[in-house]
């Protein structure tokens, strides 16, 4: 599996460094062609207004939406149906899809290459904003709307209100050191959204189907635990 990190703007190099420390092949994604090579994608921290514009203008945003919506095949299902033509088997895959488990567990993505397989996505900070269904705050960018949550931009204040913390995250044993940089807040989550971590009683890491978002940066600290949690969504 190759993991892509969206590299229009932001701390994509830090994410790639974490992935390399886990010995996971990782590439920078700046085009539809790059995106077609990956089966998992990280949208990094940065400025959501900037990354959002590139997503819109390049067509990469639309393609992410299309591929996240592709239903992965159930893991133990026999290989699908006689017709092996790409379009046809895709259709059958969609028809035969099962509802996604909130944890994405028990299912494996299709692996046909060429950008036709289902995509899992992890967004940090700006990436989280761009994946949310709704965003509040001034000059909010257009989003991909892939997770049922509302985010408020720069909700803690300006840079002087940025801070570091240690987070307890479900599925990770030790507290994870993270940074909240001009961070957004998750002000509302839909009922099918799983909350994986809270800070001061508010959700900061959530997951729904193929999509996980966090309002903090683990990639700028030494920890790779959150990335492992994300990569486990493919298994």
């Amino acid at each position: 599996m190759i993991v892509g990190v969206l590299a229009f703007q932001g701390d994509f190099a830090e994410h790639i460094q974490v992935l390399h420390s886990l010995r996971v092949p990782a590439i920078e994604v700046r085009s539809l062609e790059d995106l077609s090579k990956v089966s998992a994608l990280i949208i990094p921290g940065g400025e959501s207004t900037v990354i959002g514009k590139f997503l819109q203008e390049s067509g990469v945003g639309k393609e992410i939406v299309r591929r996240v919506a592709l239903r992965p095949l159930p893991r133990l299902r026999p290989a699908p149906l006689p017709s092996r033509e790409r379009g046809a088997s895709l259709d059958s895959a969609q028809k035969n899809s099962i509802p996604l488990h909130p944890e994405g567990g028990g299912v494996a993505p299709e692996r046909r290459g060429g950008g036709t397989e289902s995509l899992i996505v992890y967004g940090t900070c700006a990436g989280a904003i761009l994946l949310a269904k709704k965003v509040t705050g001034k000059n909010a960018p257009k989003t991909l709307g892939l997770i049922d949550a509302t985010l408020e931009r720069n909700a803690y204040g300006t840079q002087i209100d940025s801070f570091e913390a240690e987070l307890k995250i479900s599925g990770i044993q030790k507290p994870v050191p993270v940074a909240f940089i001009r961070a957004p807040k998750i002000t509302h989550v839909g009922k099918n959204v799983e909350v994986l971590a809270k800070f001061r009683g508010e959700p900061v890491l959530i997951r729904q189907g193929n999509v996980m978002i966090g309002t903090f940066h683990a990639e700028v600290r030494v920890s790779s635990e959150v990335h492992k949690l994300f990569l486990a969504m493919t298994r």
Partner: protein
Amino acid sequence: MFTLTNHTGVDLAKMLKGGVIMDVVTAKQAKIAEAAGACAVMALERVPSDIRAQGGVARMSDPSLIAQIQKAVSIPVMAKIRIGHTAEARILEAMAVDFIDESEVLTPADPFHHVDKNALKIPFVCGATNLGEALRRIAEGACMIRTKGEAGTGNVVEAVRHLKLIKGEIAALKSMTAAELKKFAVAERVPPELVSDVKKAQRLPVVTFVAGGIATPADAALLMELGAEGVFVGSGIFKSKDPARMAKAIVQATTHYNDAKKLLQISTGLTGAMAGLEIANLPTKMSERGW
């Protein structure tokens, strides 16, 4: 190992990477910059080319103008102070700007010292022309380094020089013995552990942008190709004929710097870059301010 004090400031600089930070004088310009895809704006009293043309003492911008800019945009707002002007820095900290640029573009205020940046909570970006200067600023608490270049000239040669010097000096550390490293640290008046960190990591411990003289998308792409992590554009945007278009083109070129076909598309038909100045004929070289 050398310890950086302002962790979240160093982090914010990482979030700006791959982006373009644009000089703006008014809230209206700030909105144009944000709409074009700037990752931050830099508030200042006059853009560098006007400072050159008009002369006089250049100072921190009027706080009311900075406040209007903060209100107008959602991206980080930076503002410039004079070298060593701790009071201007405290005023900007009280306004909760996101980053302070202790800048040679303004008239220096202190002939002996730069601001003690470790004493403030707001992160600082500082200019440098070589490795020693960059490390002195980092030791003082800078969270981000940029080349000085020669601001307000539309002439990119000094930015290229400074970036290549910094990169070259970092590479040269590799072959130095312990004694030579110590000698370098003493000569440059920087902590020896900071020098050995840079030798080991083969990069500065903070994000490194370029600034000074960038006037076209190709200029931005050239510097990104040379290893810059992002770009400051001063006069290059709002002294061009079509600022919104030039701003967008430079943003695109900074992201797609290694895609020649895209660069061709971005650069084609883009006339009206700011007029340039020959650096040899300048009465004031801003890059020589600071030490």
